[in-house]
């Protein structure tokens, strides 16, 4: 069981800020494939990975990063602070 968080337009497109996902995905990319297979809104949100960023346990990561031991995955667009 893993917490999956969505922010900004990713959150709006998927329609929720957070959910718990039962998964045995080995990497972030695998998890994304599982989510895309669920419903159209996920497929839409994850259509262009170059427009997305991912954080594992609140640290920026790559899409090929392993999920072993990870408790929180967050997906969001490039940040626009400052």
């Amino acid at each position, binding site marked *: 069981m893993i917490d999956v968080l969505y*922010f900004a337009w990713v959150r709006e497109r998927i329609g929720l800020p957070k959910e718990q996902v039962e998964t045995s995905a080995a990497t972030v990319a695998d998890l994304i494939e599982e989510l895309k297979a669920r419903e159209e809104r996920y497929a839409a949100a994850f259509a262009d990975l170059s427009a997305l960023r991912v954080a594992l346990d609140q640290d920026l990561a790559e899409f090929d990063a392993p999920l072993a031991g990870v408790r929180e995955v967050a997906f969001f667009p490039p940040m626009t602070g400052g």
Partner: protein
Amino acid sequence: MAVRVQQEPFALGAEVEAFAAGRQDAGAVVTFTGIVRDLVSGDLSRMVIEHYPGMTEAALDKIEAQARARWDLKDCLIIHRYGEMAAGDMIMMVATASPHRADAFDAAEFLMDYLKSRAPFWKKEITAQGETWVESKAQDEDALARW
């Protein structure tokens, strides 16, 4: 050294005054303040800033530690708001204090460049025409390359 992530407004003048007051260890203090611009002229617009509680503080702490490791800083302050703001409202500020003018300037620019692209904040502009998530700029990502 302080990092504050908050919804409520901050008092820029009082913050800068307190940061610089009586500072005998550092002759150079630089501040940057980010303000909501009225992008759609004459239009009543608002901005909403979303953030990632927990990760935001961790990211800002990390950016601040990098700045302190790299330059001779006697003090450093980062304040960043989230939530709803109107045109003219202050979004955030950074302040740096160093014995060296170049260090104070460089560290403040470094903090801003990293904060723009590495701290989990997202801006949305709301006007009469609708809502738009602000897109990140390639030049903001490119700005990191100089450090």
